[in-house]
């Protein structure tokens, strides 16, 4: 059983790595896109197997309750994004925004990114996780700059600098965690393994853990996009190819937050350590309020949804900072729903940008009239992301606010204010985008709508009925998070 589990876990890692190597060598563009999707599909299937069989925890890899759903979610969104990307990139190639050489590079980097994210989720070793997150950052940096326009280069450079600084801080935090563990566990790989750390954390030196967590929160928090460390996020989303924006928002932010969560679990196990809650709550609330107000002044559609990502990451961080079973449960739900919804939105935005030939919102009007499927898809997506019922995000936001209100009414009010402001901004913009007189070109969309609607229907279904198995799993993990 565990051998099969080990095989599946390794497959989740090896398949993307091998496909990446293959894709770097293959010259034909249509085949590379298909191979990309195929590889993503195989990875997804392998990871679903991990639901049923799990390998024993090794010094380097672990599959436990905390990361198994995230692995499946990541590989699923990776697969659907690769399907979207296949048709989208073909169109970009036709338009001449990308050359075939860069296409190979793009696909190889995509699979490398999948590999890195899977490794970060599956890693049992703190240092290995750090290496994986760094690799993910680097691949996305290269992909953001792929169009090689001045704006794209600026965005990629900013992302590189800020991301690297964040990673450097995170590494220092990692070293401090190792130091704290070493005096209790002894030297060697055990002092860096998650399962060992959580088990023995109560004996660690609290002061060292405090300092470590500050560095880790700042470091990985930069990658999550929490204000005031968010400066790279809007540009990176706006200037990179749309599949990359979808993967960034939907997956990479989640992976970084997952790293923070792991460390939060370690901190929670130590009673003398500083409560990580208030820090996370502060950063989360600042992000929500800041992003909500920034949504009003945006002119570029991708940038606007990038700020929406900042806002939602803020909500999730806030939820985990508040702690307690309900808030943690809601946070986990929100991570999943946001991942699916935001990537769906970016799929539709990608279609829109291709059809209209521009990302400026002033040029895009009346989508439901000129492109009904696309327009209504966008409407559905935005309704989901602002948290209107019956979509899933409504439930998670509702749970967060009620559980916060029971403990800290003022914070709940502030959070609700932020959510309402964001709702207003997005609906206002949606009105302009989707309804009214059509403006801009009326070309037909070339890419596939299936991924977008697949995601949205999942969120809708989960909003109405969440399977009990999933509920109990989330509740169990919420309890672990403390």
């Amino acid at each position: 059983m565990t051998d099969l589990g080990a095989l599946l876990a390794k497959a989740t890692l090896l398949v993307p790595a091998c496909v990446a190597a293959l894709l770097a060598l293959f010259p034909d563009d249509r085949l590379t896109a298909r191979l990309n999707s195929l590889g993503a599909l195989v990875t997804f299937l392998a990871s679903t197997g991990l639901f049923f069989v799990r390998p024993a925890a090794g010094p380097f890899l672990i599959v436990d309750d905390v990361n198994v759903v995230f692995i499946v979610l990541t590989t699923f969104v990776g697969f659907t994004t690769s399907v979207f990307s296949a048709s989208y990139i073909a169109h970009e190639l036709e338009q001449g925004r990308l050359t075939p050489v860069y296409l190979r590079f793009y696909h190889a980097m995509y699979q490398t990114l999948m590999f890195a994210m899977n490794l970060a989720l599956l890693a049992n070793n703190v240092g290995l996780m750090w290496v994986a997150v760094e690799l993910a950052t680097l691949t996305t940096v290269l992909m953001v700059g792929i169009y090689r326009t001045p704006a794209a280069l600026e965005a990629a450079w900013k992302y590189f600098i800020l991301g690297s600084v964040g990673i450097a801080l995170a590494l220092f935090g990692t070293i401090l965690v190792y130091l704290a563990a070493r005096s209790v566990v002894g030297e060697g790989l055990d002092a860096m393994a998650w399962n060992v750390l959580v088990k023995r954390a109560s004996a660690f030196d609290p002061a060292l853990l405090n300092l470590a967590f500050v560095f880790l929160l700042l470091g990985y928090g930069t990658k999550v996009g929490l204000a005031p460390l968010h400066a790279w996020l809007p540009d990176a989303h706006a200037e990179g190819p749309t599949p990359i924006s979808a993967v960034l928002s939907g997956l990479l932010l989640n992976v970084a937050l997952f790293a923070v969560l792991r460390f939060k679990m370690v901190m929670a196990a130590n009673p003398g350590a500083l409560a990580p809650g208030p820090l996370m709550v502060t950063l989360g609330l600042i992000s929500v309020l800041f992003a909500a107000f920034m949504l009003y002044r945006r002119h570029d559609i991708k940038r606007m949804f990038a700020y929406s990502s900042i806002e939602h990451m803020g909500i999730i961080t806030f939820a985990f900072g508040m702690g307690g079973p309900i808030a943690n449960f809601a946070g986990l739900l929100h991570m999943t729903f946001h991942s699916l919804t935001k990537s769906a939105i970016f799929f539709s935005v990608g279609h829109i940008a291709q059809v209209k030939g521009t990302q400026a919102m002033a040029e895009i009007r009346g989508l439901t009239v000129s492109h009904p499927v696309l327009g209504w898809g966008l409407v559905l997506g935005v309704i989901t992301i602002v948290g209107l019922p019956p979509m899933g995000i409504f439930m998670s936001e509702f749970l967060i606010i009620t559980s916060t209100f029971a403990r800290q009414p003022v914070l709940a009010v502030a959070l609700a204010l932020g959510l309402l402001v964001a709702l207003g901004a997005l609906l206002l913009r949606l009105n302009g985008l989707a309804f009214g007189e059509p403006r801009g070109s009326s070309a037909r969309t070339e890419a596939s709508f299936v991924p977008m609607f697949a995601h949205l229907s999942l969120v809708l279904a989960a909003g109405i009925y969440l399977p009990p198995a999933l509920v109990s799993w989330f509740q169990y993990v919420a309890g672990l998070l403390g």
Partner: protein
Amino acid sequence: MDRLVLDVAHLFAGGLVLVSFLLLYQDRMFGLLNTFALHALVVSLSVAWQAYIQLAPHLYITAAIALVVKAIIIPVALHRIIVRLGIHRTIETVVGIGQTMLAGIALVALSILVMLPITAEAGTLAREDLAFSLSVILLGLLMMISRRNAVSQVIGFMSIENGLILAATAAKGMPLVVEISVAFSILIALIVIGIFLFRIRERFDTVDVHALERFRGEQL
């Protein structure tokens, strides 16, 4: 611990902080590159000494990597890039050098005050090295903030990495992952530097990030 052993380690770690200050003081590009080579040299000497004291032979590899890649290859490569691209040879700073140095001293004092009490349980050597490595990291961050030129920002980032190497070797017994991450960082830094500086050069006349700001997209 033997007095001489401690003194030598202290010499290298303190010397690294000193060279970080020298990096802050530079106002010419080539001088900056040479000082960075010295920085990498001191780090590799420090790591080699740690390898000797801790009887951890795998750290010699780290020292060799730091020496070859960061003290030799990267400065030479950057030297060629600067010459070929005609990058500005003087480094513009955001505030004057005096204020930068004062801020640097404040950061060193801060990091010493923060790190020393926390690491009370670790050995003398580890405590010193950790305090100094945090100083080097913070000084590298200061350098990144207070410079306008992309090359000097990248060098600031590489000095942060050197500080991290020092910290990682001070944490005695950290597993092989350290070498992997170190080699990784070096390799990728080299690649990306090359790619980015080249690409930036294709579009602009300078590698001054101020010129990049014209393309900032929407202002905040």
